[in-house]
């Protein structure tokens, strides 16, 4: 083919990293959609906020990457839960489209405010000391940080899957997704469960933002294009399944990375084209249940 093997593996790692972000974001979207029945358009803005909180912590608080990994998701999740309690809850009885529009408005507000404060250019965030450098694998040099992002996010995805599919709290959540009224009749506080779920979803988005901060610059616009791709990922996977959204996220990231090697012009659009094809073949998505 004449394409050096380094290019293949380089794009494969980038693809896996983007796939990790797609997976974390679409996982959060799927969890939120399951219980709240809304598509959280603000997800991209919350991902951006996660990266910014990490940057704030380092620049103004002197707290490094390790702290950011814990504190940023908590802070963003707290904000998310506040929004859920004060705004989204009022729309529970309405058409889900209103939830989409409300979160779209929130995304515009958040992104506009950050753009006013920080402009459109990015803020650099240094890779933490412990994760600098690279491993020489023989056929390529893998930057340690990139390897860390892939392993760490895969672990988080697996833990989330375990928590939802195999624990008692997860069982409540799944039950409430199926039939909230009945679960409530059993004495489980469903409104609190909804708030916590929204917090979980937004926290995952913020975590993806922290992971992305050293790779991409911390930029007010970093979430707005990403969320559209994630929507396509969600349509391809179907929002019915937790495992499905994780697998689809990683797979599409890799596909996008490999397209960059084979036919760079199509790398921006390959996910959208695939979405259109899948819709023609299987309108409910790969893992979706028919409505």
């Amino acid at each position, binding site marked *: 083919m004449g394409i050096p093997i380094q290019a293949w593996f380089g794009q494969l790692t980038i693809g896996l990293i983007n796939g990790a972000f797609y997976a974390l974001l679409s996982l959060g979207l799927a969890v939120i959609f399951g219980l709240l029945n809304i598509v959280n358009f603000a997800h991209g803005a919350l991902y951006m906020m996660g990266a910014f909180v990490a940057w704030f912590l380092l620049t103004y608080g002197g707290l490094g990457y390790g702290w950011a990994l814990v504190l940023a998701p908590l802070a963003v999740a707290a904000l998310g839960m506040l929004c859920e309690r004060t705004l989204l809850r009022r729309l529970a009885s309405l058409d889900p489209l209103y939830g989409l529009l409300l979160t*779209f408005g929130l995304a*515009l507000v*958040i*992104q506009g405010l950050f753009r006013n404060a920080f402009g459109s250019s990015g803020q650099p965030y240094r890779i933490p000391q412990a994760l600098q450098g690279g491993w020489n694998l023989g056929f390529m040099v893998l930057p340690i940080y990139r390897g860390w992002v892939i392993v760490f996010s895969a672990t988080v995805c697996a833990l989330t899957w375990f928590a939802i599919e195999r624990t008692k709290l997860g069982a409540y959540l799944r039950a409430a997704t199926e039939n909230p009224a009945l679960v409530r009749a059993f004495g489980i506080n469903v409104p609190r469960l909804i708030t916590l779920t929204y917090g979980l979803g937004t926290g995952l988005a913020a975590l993806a933002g922290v992971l992305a901060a050293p790779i991409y610059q911390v930029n007010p616009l970093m979430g707005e294009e990403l969320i*559209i*791709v994630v929507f396509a990922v969600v349509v391809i996977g179907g929002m019915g399944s937790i495992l499905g959204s994780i697998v689809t996220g990683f797979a599409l990231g890799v596909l996008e990375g490999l397209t960059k090697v084979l036919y760079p012009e199509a790398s921006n659009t390959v996910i*959208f*084209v695939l979405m*259109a094809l899948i819709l023609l073949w299987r309108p409910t998505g790969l893992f979706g249940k028919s409505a």
Partner: protein
Amino acid sequence: MTAIVPSEVQSRPTRTVPLALRAAPLGYAALLGVGLVAPFFVYPVFLMKVLCFGLFACAFNLLLGYVGLLSFGHAAFYGSAAYATAYAAKAWGAPPLSVIFFGMLAAGLLGSAIGAIAIRRQGIYFAMITLALAQMFYFFCMQVPFTGGEDGIQAVPRGTLLGLFDLRDTLTLYFFVFALFLAGFLLVGRAIHSPLGQVLKAIRENELRAVSLGYKPDQYKLIAFILSATLSGLAGALHALVFQLASLTDVHWSLSGEVVLMTLLGGLGTEYGPLAGALILVTLEQYLAPFGAWVTVAQGACFVLCVLVFRRGVAGALGDWRRRRRAGLRAHSAAERPD
């Protein structure tokens, strides 16, 4: 099976003409009057911008307000027509009416392709799919050579209408734009009040029942989608001629968001609402333009407020107020005559 149009004619109310239809000629006359006088008091280019966005919002509302389909990708149709029009006018030097027709054709074709894919899902999926497909079109426009990439197509010639009217004159251009706007607006009104519009509303209210009555919702949805896309194309084509520019802004997702906001702000499913929404939003943008990203913040806040407390929009609120007043008057006159 041939697609025989079901006996829609009977679904038409036989004698009682709906209130909206009775008030229609009056409203149209008022719109015509205001439109003819306005350019002598307000800057015509501003008015033309309102007309372009107003028509865009009306076309969009045909889909959201009357079929209940939220498209988040309507900028693709607006922008594709703007590019097609600008290209035809600049590269081929074609006359204004032909280039506008060419633009509408481009938007209609794109609309039938995107519509055919998107109507396979409903509700929020429909919104996400249209958004994703429009984003794909955005990347397409960014990469192909004839759109001029980041520069867009600049200095588009406006041409001479029918060889008689020089459209470089702003006022002449205004009346040309106003005439085409009216044509588009009346067409939307006609579609809403026609048997087709009744079926569309039936599908919005209860799709399964429409199926059980023998209608094929997919066909109707696709017709509405293509009509909406083509009319959005008319708006985009006019935009390209007025501003002599077609650029990536015209296909960007933020424009798709703006048209949703205009419609929501003006009043979903009302005939004049989207026009009012366009007027409010264009004015807002005009005044906030020096403040950079605050425009985005204001738009976002409008979205949040509309969804939370103002879901029926300006036109809806006005309608409520008039109904309340009429009911109040009736109660008042009843109280005066205690017999």
